[in-house]
């Protein structure tokens, strides 16, 4: 067992006119990048200093991701475009091709490909060296809102869509390899349950999935069955796609932790093995939804819609 301890509070001074949706820790653990309107704020954790990187976007940034070498930030924007900004050289590429707001991004572990998904129902794969579109995967019938690639295996890409489907694609060919749905009755009386977040386990064998009915599940996607279900109590129709992630305690004998955010600003931490609730904590002052949860090593960064960004550290109990 263990728990999160607050390390840093209010990493940015929120601007009340702006809605915040993305904050990510860099792979080397030195920075936190936060999307603020059309700018990216990069907070240096060591020097406790924030630098603003303006982008060419004309609308707010919906999501962002770090390149695996921690040198670049790719931003997904409501203006249908993606930019790749280098921390030293500035903008490297502006990728155009989506025909609706871009919702999420993920790099392959080599950093040579960037994948994006969009409200236009497609997933696109880009060459990061030349900024060239390599292929488009169109297999969803609603907005695709979340994608992920395991850090140990670039061969598969998982996507979650508002059409209620979770699909697994072959990154190289673009073929759909597997489809997971919420049980057999995914089309209930109220229509389908939209998927809001997908995230692979560190070994790439399981998939953590959040849906807008407030339920979090771990799928064994190779077998196509649910192996864990977590309910945060308030099981209703959600409006916001709240953040979630896995955290792997430093002690390898300790089970991984499923960390999820809620619409009223709480964070729930579950034992991924026996599903016990370790901890419940309030991570905002404003009770706004927790839009982003990002775990890296023993650290967890949370961000609320109103811009309350915090850094927590996981401490194992002995």
């Amino acid at each position, binding site marked *: 067992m263990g728990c999160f301890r607050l390390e840093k509070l209010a990493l940015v001074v929120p601007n009340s006119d702006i809605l915040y949706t993305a904050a990510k820790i860099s792979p080397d653990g030195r920075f936190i990048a936060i999307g603020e309107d059309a700018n990216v704020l990069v907070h240096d954790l060591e020097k406790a200093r924030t630098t603003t990187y303006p982008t060419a976007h004309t609308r707010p940034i919906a999501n962002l991701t770090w*390149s*695996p*070498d921690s*040198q*670049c930030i790719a931003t997904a924007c409501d203006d249908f475009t993606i930019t790749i900004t*280098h921390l*030293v*050289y500035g903008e*490297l590429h502006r990728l155009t091709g989506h025909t609706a707001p871009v919702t999420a991004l993920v790099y*392959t*572990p*080599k*950093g*040579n*490909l960037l994948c994006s998904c969009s409200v236009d129902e497609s997933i696109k794969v880009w*060459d*990061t*060296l*030349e900024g*060239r579109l*390599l292929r488009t995967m169109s*297999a969803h019938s609603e907005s695709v809102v979340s994608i992920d690639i395991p850090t140990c*295996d*670039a*061969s*598969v890409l998982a996507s979650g869509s508002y059409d209620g489907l979770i699909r*697994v694609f*072959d*990154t*190289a*060919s673009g*073929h*759909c*390899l*597997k*489809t*997971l*749905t919420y049980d*057999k009755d995914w089309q209930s009386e109220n229509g389908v349950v939209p998927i809001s977040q997908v995230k692979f*386990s*560190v*070994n*790439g*064998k*399981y998939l953590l999935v959040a849906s807008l009915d407030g339920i979090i599940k*771990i799928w*064994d996607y*190779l077998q*196509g*069955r*649910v*192996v*864990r*279900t977590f309910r945060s109590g308030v099981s209703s129709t959600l409006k916001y796609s709240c953040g979630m992630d*896995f955290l*792997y305690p430093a002690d*390898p004998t300790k089970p*991984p932790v499923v960390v999820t955010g809620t619409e009223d600003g709480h964070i729930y931490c579950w034992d*991924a*093995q026996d599903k016990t609730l370790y901890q419940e904590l309030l991570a905002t002052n404003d009770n706004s939804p927790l839009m982003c949860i990002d775990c890296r090593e023993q650290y967890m960064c949370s961000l609320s819609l109103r811009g309350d960004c915090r850094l927590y550290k996981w401490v194992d109990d002995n």
Partner: protein
Amino acid sequence: MANLQLQDPFSVLKEYPEKLTQILVSPIYTCCIRFSPRGDYLAAGCSNGAIVIYDIDTAKPITMLGSEGGCHIRSVQSLSWSRCGRYLLSSGRDWWIKVWDLQSRSRPLKEHKFDSPIWECHWSSRAPWECISTVLEKSYAYVVDFVGEEAIVQELKSTLDNDDAESLDHGYTLVSCSHPRFSDLVLTGTSKGWFKIYQLRQDGVTLRHCSKFANSNTKHLVISQSGDRIAINSSDRTIRQFSLFISDDMEHINIEIEHKYQDVINKLQWNSIFFSNNSAEYLIASTHGSSAHDIYLWETSSGTLVRVLEGTEEELLDIDWNFYNMCIAANGIETGNIYIWSIVIPPKWSALAPDFEEVDENIEYKEKEDEFDESDVLEQQQELDEAEETEIDLRALEKFDVRGNDLTMKSFIIPIEYSDIVMLKMWDGAGAA
């Protein structure tokens, strides 16, 4: 890799690629090509001494070695990747062998100059930083140790060789390879058709085997991953395949000829040869001569030709086969382009929904006896509950892929050179203006 677990197993486990799928365009004539150990990069050695690395995912060149100097000034003869994928060994007709660190690749990390052009050079499997090289008009191969500041070079020659040399001329040593299982054994072939096995030990070099297989030049020498089969390509237009038996104490070494491969119609020489994985069920070769554009693939147990890999419009020179991505690459002699054959797996439409099934012909639906029974629902619930209690492992990585390749060695990622992207952008910008 997880994609292979979700695809049709019969397609995934095909033993050799059949379709030309990629062409890597090269503006320079390429002499030799090598996939990185995990098959995600391909290095090409060029006739002007340049070494270009391609990314297989994007089919584009990503870097050229020696941007600040130190590259070869004549054609690159051979390339060899270290097992970790970080260090690349190159040898050239400019008499140099060089070690490149792909982490910082603007200059060679280490280098050594011989006094004549190099035939080939490869990493030894015995020790890190040790390599075996063959040099023009030299009777013996060389062991080069790059561990220190200065390379230590030792002739691969035993005391037995000295006695023999007086009575018999074995010719020059042209090719060599390391034994995959007995890492201290080095196999060599000479210009007069002799095949030798040396054992490298702390106290010196021992000649373990010496036999004559032909009267002509040895062009290539390959050994299977399991170490019990070898093939020798020689300039008498023949590939000879031998079974190799080595007892654990190395006292008994036995080689026996299994098959000879010749092009009976065109009487062509073979440019390059390569074995398939594990115990080498297949042998491939590219043909010499401007009329032949194919790669021949034989089954080694029967010696029959089973497949001809087609699709190119020019003669092919060097070949390489990677067993992680199951791709065969060969470079063209006229354009320098690199052709890649791979296994093409057709899309599976049943993957688009969880309860789709692919059937060969229409099946009339018949309700099963218990299909809509209520008790079944209970049982199903029980099954679901059970799944929730079975232990799951979210951390442990897979050790082998479905083809049996080792996944424990982490593959090296070549860092992206961002200044190059910026420079190219400025170049394009200036061109547009």
